[in-house]
């Protein structure tokens, strides 16, 4: 189904997503929204950035259009392009244009993955002009007050080749995310996967130990999302060690020694 065949209202969240605030991020986001400032969410994979945006879109009653950025993402993919439809050529708005026109929240996930020339397209939307030039169409779309641009990126993936340009970074209000403190992470696990406090506590302890291996061969620690998966598998009747191996150990490393050490850590809890 093409984007233009969906109604914009389809992108509005009808049900409140579960989100447990870790600090003052909700207030900060609301303040930025009210001041029409773009927001940048920084944090490791699976720590709740996307869930936070969903929560805020529900809270602010805005539609949410998410674009998962990748290295082949072009400016046309974002803003729109002319396309053949039968025997006529029609203009098809891209997701960013749809979000701008509808006054929703445009969420560009993992923006650092997109081509550098693509990220420049969003610049006019992020300063006081708040406009989106559609160069191919010769049109400029002014963003309504309700429009909000949100980007996310994972600082752990930074490299010379993959990093946001400073001219891009310095246009955003940045909110730092990290794995939740143990008590909150346990609460999240109970809510999201339905495990009891004991299992949630053990899973969080495992995560805490495994995260100690960051910079010792692990690119990233185990995410809250993976802990939720583990809890869900355990809830589905899978033996805890097997569930943890499948969700906590194997997805994060292919290094045999690393896997073995993580399995031993899991075994100290279950």
């Amino acid at each position, binding site marked *: 189904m093409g984007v233009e065949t969906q109604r914009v209202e389809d992108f509005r969240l009808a049900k409140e997503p579960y989100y447990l605030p870790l600090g003052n991020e909700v207030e900060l986001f609301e303040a930025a929204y009210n001041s029409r400032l773009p927001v940048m969410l920084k944090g490791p994979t699976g720590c709740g950035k996307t869930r936070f945006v969903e929560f805020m879109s529900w809270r602010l009653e805005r539609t949410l259009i998410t674009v998962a950025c990748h290295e082949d993402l072009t400016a046309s993919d974002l803003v729109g392009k002319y396309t053949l439809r039968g025997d006529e050529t029609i203009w098809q708005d891209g997701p960013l244009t749809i979000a701008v026109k509808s006054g929703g929240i445009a969420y560009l996930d993992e923006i650092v993955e997109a081509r550098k020339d693509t990220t420049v397209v969003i610049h006019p939307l992020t300063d006081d002009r708040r406009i989106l030039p559609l160069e191919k169409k010769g049109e400029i779309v002014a963003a309504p007050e309700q429009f909000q641009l949100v980007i996310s990126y994972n600082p752990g993936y930074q490299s010379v080749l993959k990093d946001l340009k400073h001219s891009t970074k310095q246009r955003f209000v940045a909110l730092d995310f990290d794995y939740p403190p143990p008590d909150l992470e346990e609460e999240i696990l109970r809510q999201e996967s339905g495990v009891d406090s004991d299992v949630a506590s053990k899973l969080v302890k495992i995560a805490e130990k*495994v995260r*100690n*291996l960051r910079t*010792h061969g692990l690119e990233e620690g185990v995410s809250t999302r993976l802990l939720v998966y583990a809890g869900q598998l355990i809830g589905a009747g899978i033996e805890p060690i097997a569930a943890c191996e499948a969700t906590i150990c194997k997805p994060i490393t292919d290094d045999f*020694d690393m896997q*073995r*050490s*993580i399995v*031993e*850590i899991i075994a100290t809890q279950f």
Partner: protein
Amino acid sequence: MTFGPAVGNVGMYVAREMLASVPEDQRAAYLSIVEQISELKYQLGVEVARQLPRLLAEHDPALVATYLDQVRAVAALGWKSGVEVAKQLPDLYDAPDPMLASSYVGIVTGATTGHDEEDAGTAELTVELERLERELREMEPKVQRAQELKTLLSARDRRDEKRRKHAVELASVLPPILARLRPRYRPTFLEQVNRVAAADPESALEAADTLLDLLNSERVSPDGAAEWVDRGLDVLDRNKEVGLGYFRLGSKYSLDVLDELREGLALKQVARILKLYATALCGRDVAIRSTQEMYAIEAFGSDHVVLPPDMRFFDDDEANFTAYKVATAHGAGRIEFGTYEFRLADMGDTVDRLVARYGASA
């Protein structure tokens, strides 16, 4: 072009033109004479073959006979003189004075012959020379054999010299090695080093060093040490240099044999897993060290967990790994909770804290 095989050996000396210049009725005699003269000396035959046609052309058999007699006579004394005489004589026969040719032959004969006494001496010398040469030819195999024996003995002498030198070194290094060796392994050590020393003292030097480490660190049992030496002696028997490498633990085969003989789980096999495990448990970068590295103890920081080089409490490696894991967790606990950070100067504060928490009577 030479005259063909039809004239037998003479074909080598008589060109077709030469034969063509001989009167037809004398050609058979010509070839016969050349053949006879050639048997004396090849060069003489060639020269006679060149000169004879002009003599035969004169149809004077007496002249031909004189020529041949004079040539033969001079050639018998010296073939080179004979060749020269054969070349010059036909011209001298043409001289008006018939005595000229015979005087010429007389002078050449006298000059070639020399004194009789000298000839007799020359003959004796020749005989003696021939005898000596024959004896020398008979001696040749013996000389060759003597040379071979000389080389062999020299090589053995060099080898024995090296052997003695390495034996001296062995005598010097064994006592300090024995002093460093755990007493219970000394009999095994001495027995095995003795076996290697009997085969090659240089290899025994290497074996002594290696066995010291292997036995002290208990990487091999006494039986394992004997087996390791057995295999090494086989290698040494085939190639000395490779055998040296084996006893130095410098060959893959030597290490493979050790692995084969190993009993228990080696720390090096699981050190990285244990390091990651300990690092995860205590949240600090932890290094795993073997007790073999205790000599570097002053370099150890507080973030080291020291473990035995192999674990052989249990029969299976999984259980031995668990034993390693328990020891590692214990070490990691000490690191995590600050055992090594205790300072005597902090005792006062610690006591105050304890008193504040539990009361002075506690």
